[in-house]
């Protein structure tokens, strides 16, 4: 076989036993790789009802058949586990360099089971696999940990680790790799912390053999040329990264502002891409083999928010920035650095603080409880809260549970803007109806990375859809969910994949991506087959959710989206019209009217019926 190693590394942290096993080529083909393989093993081997922070939960790092190949942006991996934040599935994606180095160890998947009795890290250098003590780095932030572990292993190695937030089991804890890149969402870092696993260090030279190396090189050069042509024309993603997006969503009135009390932010100019570029940008920082280079190194050179790091991305601006009503860019950048160093998801962190701010302003929680005033726009209080969350101090203990549990605990669940207990990203579904359907039905709770129909509703890629209309959205959401499952399974990055390896028809179509998969693996996929495999992956994830207790009864949107019309902007007066879309969506997915996959659908996809 090509493209895949067809090898899994399994580490039992309780016993320190390390085993390797082969992957059945049929399973490999049917589940594509990455996210697809991970759900196959998770569903097959683990009871979905387990406590996510117990030793019984499995933590899977998964690369795809295009990871560590010449394919542009073939630098991604997925962290798949049961989420302690949502109780549903977690599958968080990250790029940088670690995923490529991980695949070069000669394994496609790392599976971590059990719980170490003391803090450990795992070194994987091809066949040299060691479970080592991490006592000396426990308590250290992600940057220090990375530096120390590289110094004691090899500068050629790459590190994925947790910071204090993961150690303290904060439910928004991320797994950071290469210091600044995050498999951020759904509390994957808390799962790692619960296993006493501080870090994974990967190195090696086992590039997977490709089915057609020359063909892969040619298609990669062609794709890179297409990206390069857009960059030359002036691609916003190159100039600004995603930080230009606040102006777009503000124009459309769907920029989360003050915990979704508004859809526009009057100080958006202070926190947009131009402000960031003019004041703090140093240079672009691409992931490995990325021709687009949307990452950016920034620095606040002096003052109380002095610091250096990467970001912020749009999702950080819309959560820690506009979501909290914060317009001080230096403080926002600093908050982003802290989240990276403590190892935290900026979306859940920001939106949880935003809920606390609203609760404080409405008098539901007191200054005494919090330890300080916590008004919208108070950037210093926001930074103080981030520290408390990471270290589980005082009111930080409440915040570290995420906004759903926080709002519920203090008697106001209607203020939490979540689905499946996970905070919304930066697109208000009252003014982007397809996103509402996506959030409500996502296998990982609210997430744009689960099938970002904002590409059409907001960005006009490949065509501009009216974001206020519900018509045609069920089919669109289904197609995007499957397309994202495919990209996440392949090992490519969504940013480049959607634009350059899908063909731009009314619905994007994976002609070029299927060709790349074939050049890598020799599996001879048709585009129809890879889409069917993606449907298989998505549907199996849904089965996991049902068994985990996060089934169709959670396909809902929070109170504010359904009952509080947007008060401002172009979407003024609108609410999310989920009811208009959900039945048709279930039908398009081949699920029954209650939202359960039908027996026929499971059989068609070759999935287990029970």
């Amino acid at each position, binding site marked *: 076989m090509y493209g895949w190693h067809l090898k899994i590394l399994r580490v039992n942290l309780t016993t320190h036993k390390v085993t390797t096993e082969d992957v059945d080529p049929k399973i490999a083909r049917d589940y594509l790789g990455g996210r697809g393989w991970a759900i196959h093993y998770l569903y097959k081997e683990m009871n979905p009802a387990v406590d996510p922070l117990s030793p019984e939960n499995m933590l899977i790092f998964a690369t795809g058949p295009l990871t560590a190949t010449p394919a542009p942006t073939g630098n991604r991996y997925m962290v798949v586990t049961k989420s302690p934040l949502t109780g549903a599935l977690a599958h968080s994606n990250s790029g940088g360099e670690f995923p490529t180095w991980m695949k070069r160890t000669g394994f496609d998947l790392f599976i971590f089971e059990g719980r170490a009795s003391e803090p450990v890290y795992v070194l994987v250098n091809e066949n040299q696999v060691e479970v080592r003590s991490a006592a000396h780095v426990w308590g250290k932030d992600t940057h220090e940990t990375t530096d120390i572990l590289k110094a004691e292993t090899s500068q050629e190695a790459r590190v994925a680790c947790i910071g204090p937030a993961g150690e303290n089991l904060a439910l928004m804890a991320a797994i950071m790799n290469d210091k600044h890149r995050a498999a951020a969402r759904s509390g994957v870092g808390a799962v790692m912390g619960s296993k006493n696993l501080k870090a994974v260090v990967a190195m090696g030279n086992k590039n997977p053999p490709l089915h057609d190396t020359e063909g892969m090189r040619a298609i990669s050069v062609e794709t890179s040329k297409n990206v390069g042509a*857009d960059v030359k024309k*002036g*691609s*916003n*993603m190159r*100039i*600004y*990264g*995603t930080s*230009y*997006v606040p*102006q*777009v969503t503000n*124009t*459309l*009135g769907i920029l989360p502002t003050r915990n979704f009390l*508004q859809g526009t932010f*009057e*100080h*958006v*100019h*202070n926190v947009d*891409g*131009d402000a960031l570029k003019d004041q703090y940008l140093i240079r672009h920082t691409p992931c490995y083999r990325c021709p687009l280079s*949307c990452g950016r190194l920034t620095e606040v050179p002096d003052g109380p928010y002095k610091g250096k790091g990467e970001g912020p991305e*749009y*999702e950080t601006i819309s959560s820690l920035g506009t979501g909290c009503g914060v317009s001080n860019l230096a403080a926002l950048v600093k908050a982003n650095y802290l989240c990276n160093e403590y190892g935290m998801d900026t979306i859940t962190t920001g939106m949880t603080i935003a809920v606390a701010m609203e609760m404080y302003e409405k008098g539901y929680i007191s200054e005494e409880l919090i330890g300080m005033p916590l008004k919208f726009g108070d950037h210093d209080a926001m930074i103080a809260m981030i520290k408390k969350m990471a270290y589980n101090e005082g009111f930080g203990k409440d915040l570290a549970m995420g906004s759903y549990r926080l709002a519920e605990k203090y008697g106001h669940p209607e203020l939490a803007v979540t689905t499946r207990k996970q905070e919304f*990203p*930066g*697109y208000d579904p009252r003014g982007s109806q397809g996103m509402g359907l996506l959030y409500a039905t996502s296998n990982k709770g609210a997430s*744009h990375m689960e099938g*970002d129909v*904002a*590409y059409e509703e*907001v*960005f*006009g*890629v*490949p*065509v*501009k*859809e*009216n*974001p*206020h209309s519900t018509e045609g959205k069920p089919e669109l959401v289904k197609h995007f969910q499957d397309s994202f499952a495919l990209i996440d399974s392949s090992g490519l990055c969504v*940013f480049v994949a*959607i*634009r350059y390896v899908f063909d731009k028809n009314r619905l994007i179509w994976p002609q070029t991506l299927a060709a790349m998969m074939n050049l890598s693996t020799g599996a001879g996929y048709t585009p129809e087959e890879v889409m069917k495999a993606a449907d298989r992956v998505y549907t199996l994830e849904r089965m996991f959710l049902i068994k985990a207790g996060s089934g169709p009864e959670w396909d809902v949107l929070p109170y504010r989206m359904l009952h509080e019309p947007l*008060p*401002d*902007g*172009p*979407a003024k007066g609108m609410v999310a019209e989920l009811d208009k879309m959900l039945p048709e969506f279930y039908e398009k997915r081949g699920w029954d009217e209650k939202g359960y996959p039908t027996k026929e659908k499971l059989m068609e996809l070759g999935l287990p019926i029970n």
Partner: protein
Amino acid sequence: MRFCQCELGCEPSVVFDKPRNSNAVRIFVSAYETPAMIGKLPFHTGIVMRAKRVCQSFLPRARIGQMMIRIKMIANYRAVLPPEAKHGVIEIDVPDGTTVYEAISRFDIPLNDESVIVLNGLTVDLNTPLKEGDMVTAFSAIAGG
């Protein structure tokens, strides 16, 4: 209607309205919530001065057969705007009846699927005629998020 272009970036939060059959100017502020009228004054130079305290760029403009519209360019498209543009927004006068397409064609951006063009934040037919105070926004369709 005149919309605020002040440095606070609160558009369209400060609104001036001079009804045709009246010589008074009403000033609204809608920074956070429902627009609230904060003043109603006779239309003369004094009002302009007072208005400027609320909105620094209030410029009265009255030309027969012309209307003021705003063009907003986002991110890399800002480069096509003249230097007086503020936060990527410029006010221009166009003849009554001008369409979205005609207004945006005055600027050097691709008029194909490489650009997203919206009217007051809404997805519309580009042949839609504009009204006084409308804002046409354009940005490059390079995805983000």
